[in-house]
Structure formats: structure tokens, C-alpha cells
């Protein structure tokens, strides 16, 4: 699990995500601002990658932060890091927005490969969490194209195996196999590299 919870912000504020969320839960506006600044590029980037439209992505990203703010009091760091929690909220909202527009997903490769190819991971984040991120991206690059697309369509666009089969014009069983094998390869790659 990538844990960005202790990632220092570019503004220099060193408060942990948990502390910021605790402040947001009691209405501390400054804590909210720091939290937004810390994650706005990641949240907006994910939203934009999924919905493909800047205006809709901004709506989605703002809504994601508001949801996080509204639920800050019940955030449980034992279950997931704040970044994981926030990105999952963002992904779900973006999928809602995508379906609202009845838009077809863009090429999944656009989402999953543009990050590392542009090298846009902040240095401080790369130092703390980018290692796993880079390893995951590297593993993804090694996964066969069909499996990679199937995993990306499910992970980023919430597409079911049936929808993937229709989009890719492949049998349902093939879609399911691609999802399973692709995700398993990623898991195995990360797990093996994490083993001392």
C-alpha cells in the first residue's frame, strides 16, 4: 500500500494527514487548506485522467475534497492511508461523472503511463512513496497489453468484465482472465520486491 500520509507538503507544512483531518473535522479552515494544497495535484490529476474534461475534473476534485472534509471525523487511518482514502473517493466520483456523461473511457494507457513518462512525481514524494509507485509502474509495463488494458479499465473506469469484453470485443471469459492475470502479476511483482 502506498502511504503518502507523511508526505511533506510543498508549502513546508509538516503536519501529518491525520492531524490535518482531525483539524478539518472540527472546522479548522487552515488545516483544510493545507490538506487541499497537499493533494490537489494528485486528486485533480486522477479526476482529469479518468473524465478527460478539465471542467468536470475540477468539479470531481472539489467534490472529493468536500467529501473528505465532511467525513474527516470518521476517517480511520488503521484501514487505509489518507491518500488512498482520498483517491478512492476521487475515483468513485470520477466514474460517476463519466457515466453521467455517458462517455467512453479514454485509452487506459493515457492514465497509467503518462505519470512516469513525464517524470512528474515530486521529489519528496518519490523519496517516500515513489519507490513503490515506480515499481508498480514498472510491473505494469511488463504486463501484456491486453491484461494491462483490462486492469486499467476496471481500476480507473470501474468497468465490469462484461463491459470490458464489449469494449475490447473479446469473450467474457477472456476479459475475466485478463483482469485476473494482470492484477495477480502486479501483486506478485510488488510482493516479490517487498520481500527482503
Amino acid at each position: 500500500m502506498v502511504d503518502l500520509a507523511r508526505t511533506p507538503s510543498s508549502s513546508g507544512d509538516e503536519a501529518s494527514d491525520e492531524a490535518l483531518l482531525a483539524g478539518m473535522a472540527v472546522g479548522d479552515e487552515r488545516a483544510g487548506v493545507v490538506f487541499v494544497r497537499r493533494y490537489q495535484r494528485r486528486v485533480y490529476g486522477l479526476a482529469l485522467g479518468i473524465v478527460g474534461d478539465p471542467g468536470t475534473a475540477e468539479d470531481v476534485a472539489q467534490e472529493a475534497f468536500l467529501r473528505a472534509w465532511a467525513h474527516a471525523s470518521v476517517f480511520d487511518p488503521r484501514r487505509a492511508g489518507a491518500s488512498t482514502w482520498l483517491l478512492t473517493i476521487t475515483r468513485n466520483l470520477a466514474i460517476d461523472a463519466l457515466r453521467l456523461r455517458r462517455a467512453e473511457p479514454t485509452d487506459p494507457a493515457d492514465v497509467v503511463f503518462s505519470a512516469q513518462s513525464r517524470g512528474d512525481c515530486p521529489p519528496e514524494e518519490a523519496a517516500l512513496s515513489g519507490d513503490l509507485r515506480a515499481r508498480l509502474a514498472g510491473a505494469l509495463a511488463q504486463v501484456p497489453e491486453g491484461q494491462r488494458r483490462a486492469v486499467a479499465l476496471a481500476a480507473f473506469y470501474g468497468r465490469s468484465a462484461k463491459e470490458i469484453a464489449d469494449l475490447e470485443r473479446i469473450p467474457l471469459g477472456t476479459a475475466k482472465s485478463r483482469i485476473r492475470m494482470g492484477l495477480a502479476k502486479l501483486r506478485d511483482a510488488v510482493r516479490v520486491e517487498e520481500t527482503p
Partner: protein
Amino acid sequence: MTGEQRPCPDRHDALAELALGTLAGQERSDALTHVERCVGCARELAELSGVADDLLTLAPLASPPVGFELGVVERARAAGAVAAHRLPLRHSRRAWAFGHDRETLHDRAARHDRAARRPGWRLAAAAALAAAAAGAGAVLLTSRPAPRQLSPAAARPAMLASRLLHAGRVLGDVRVSVGPTPWLFMNVDDHDPGWRGQLVACEVTLADGSTRRLGTFRLADGRGSWGVPLDMPAAAVRVASLVSVHGTVLATARL
């Protein structure tokens, strides 16, 4: 293979789709039931879910438009999250909030599944209903509003939400606005195939024990969503039920 540490070979497909939040209907229900009693599959699901979450970090970073953070703060202020130290969504022991707070493994998978299968227009539809609540009667939502109707949380009233359950299975959800113009919104998106095309009713049980039928709607194409302004305080509604027109309770949501 219950009790062993390795996942069951015949569950691999389902576990991957469950981890990615894209398994639906009976497949999801079967998989969740199995995972709750199989240690090996539960561990596999946890690992795959972790990878699925981590994949989201691979999305490219992008700077939002100027004024983004101010927009968030202003909307938070309008929602009362800043000034009044009050959350827009009320939490109670039995209420299910739309955000993703404390959740079990089952909840997590169900939430992912809801997100994957829930047409986004329902969010906007609920907001549209809120706007219409002060005026006309029931609103049957059959079309998708424009994308820009993704409603700002600031304009969204405080809301109770609860799962619509049938024999322990989540079939949808019910939302009740607790604002000055209360309304109720019912989503059914995982109903029994035998109900297809069926005319159903929405009934509420009030705090005084009385039951009222709010209206009827038809489950078409496997799904149905319906809402109505309430002519009673939202707090008076204890249970919202999906009922056949003959009076058989099909599913209930406790608020």
C-alpha cells in the same frame, strides 16, 4: 478450502474483480459470502485490493485551475464544515453515509461495487429533486441530466442515507434530506430478476408506528430510482420500504 492460507483456485476471477470493485449482483454476493469464511481468499482479496488502490497513485499529477483551493474552502464554508463545525452528512449508528468512513471488508467491496454500478446521474438526480422539493409532487427520474449538474456539496442539504436491504443483500439505497424542504429518494439497482418490470411502491414507517405509501414507480431494465418531497419532518421517517403493489415488503432501509 476454508481455514487454509491459499486462495481457492475457482475464486481467482471473482477475487480480482471484487478487489477492483467491478463484481456485481449474485457473483458479488457469492464471492463475499465465501470470503467471509475463507482465510486464504480473504488474504488474497486484501492483497489484490491493496494493489488496486495503489494503481490510483499512477495517475499523472496535474495542477487544477487557479482558485481551486479557494473554491473548496468556500464550498466547505457554505456546507457548514468550517463556520459551524458541522458535517453536511449526519452520521448515526444505523445510517450509511455516502462517503467512505468505517467499513468492513464486506462494506468495502459493496461500496466499490456500488460505485462501479451506480449511474452517476442519480447523484445529480437527487440534487435536482432537492431543488424541486418545494414545488411539485413526485418526480420520476428517467433521463440523465447534463454533466454540469454534478451538484456542489454546498447546495446539497444535510442528508440521511441507508442501505436498502433484502434478506441481508444490498439492493440499493434510500436518502432522506433533513433540510427545510425534506425529500426522500430511493434507488434500486440490484433487484431480484423476478421483479423486472414490476410496479412497486415506496412506503415509510413513521416514528408513531404508522405506515404511509408515498407513491409508486416501475422497475425497468433492472433498475429504478424515484423520489418525492416529504410533507412530514424527515426525522419522523424511521423505515423506508420497497413494497409490491400488493403490499408485500420487498426491501427495507432503516433510517
